[in-house]
């Protein structure tokens, strides 16, 4: 069911990182939801304009890094007359607190939304202990 309230505008935030980019173009921070179930962590990111093939996901030392490149050639020949938002590549990184089973990470993209499922390793899953 769709929410009956009015959809508010969330301004795009420019990415601020510790390391600077060597190229001047601006990156943006994708709006992200993260939720956890007993066996997995799910990261949902909004990256409008990014195709499946242009998304890179890396996990190293519990640091999850996602980057999405827009196909900027689609704007060729277009001359702006009025603009309300800017466009650019997306990048965002998270430090993960639970242990993730790297080999089983899966992702899918639909309507510009990337959904990453990061299954927890067996030891990190809560276990119910039955008392006999």
């Amino acid at each position, binding site marked *: *069911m*769709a*929410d*009956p*309230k*009015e*959809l*508010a*505008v*969330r301004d795009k935030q420019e990415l601020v990182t510790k390391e600077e980019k060597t*190229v*001047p*173009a*601006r990156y943006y921070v994708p*709006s*992200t*939801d*993260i*939720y*956890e*179930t*007993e066996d997995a962590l*799910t990261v*949902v990111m*909004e*990256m*409008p*304009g*990014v*195709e499946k093939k242009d998304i890179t996901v890396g996990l190293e030392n519990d640091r999850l890094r996602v980057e999405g490149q827009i196909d*900027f*050639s689609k*704007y*060729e*020949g*277009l*001359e*702006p*007359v*009025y*603009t*309300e*938002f*800017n*466009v*650019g590549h997306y990048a965002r990184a998270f430090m993960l607190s639970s242990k993730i089973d790297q080999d089983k990470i899966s992702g899918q*993209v*639909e*309507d*510009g*939304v990337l959904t990453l499922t990061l299954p927890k390793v067996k030891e990190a899953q809560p276990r119910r202990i039955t008392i006999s």
Partner: protein
Amino acid sequence: MVVLLSDPFEALFKFQQGLDAFRTSDWLQSGPSGGGSYPLVNVFRKGDDLVIIAEVPGIDKSNLEIQVKGNTLRIAGAKSVNYPQEAGLHRRERLAGRFARAVTLPVGIEADGVKAECRDGILVLRLPRAERDKPKAIKVE
């Protein structure tokens, strides 16, 4: 401003600066266009025609409704964000809700020729300029 792709990074930066420069444009403000409500739009000129681009991530085609009447365009729809009940939320930044926005263009458009496509969360509307509104070349005698 026409974008050349000789150096993609340089070109992107220039394009971003170009987009910024038109943030203060009053091109739409003369009409009751509800500037700044969802979805945000960018308007481009392509030859004689206009191209309107909006970011609508997570909205399925079937939840989008586009109407044209005269020079006014209406974009309406709903976005929902769903999660499994038993999940614990760590972060919540994606917004959901209904939206409707009317944009009145300062040029005449051919309502029958308007094309809309939605791919990867980007809505692209192609609006051909009305024949009667196209500039005519005047021959100097």
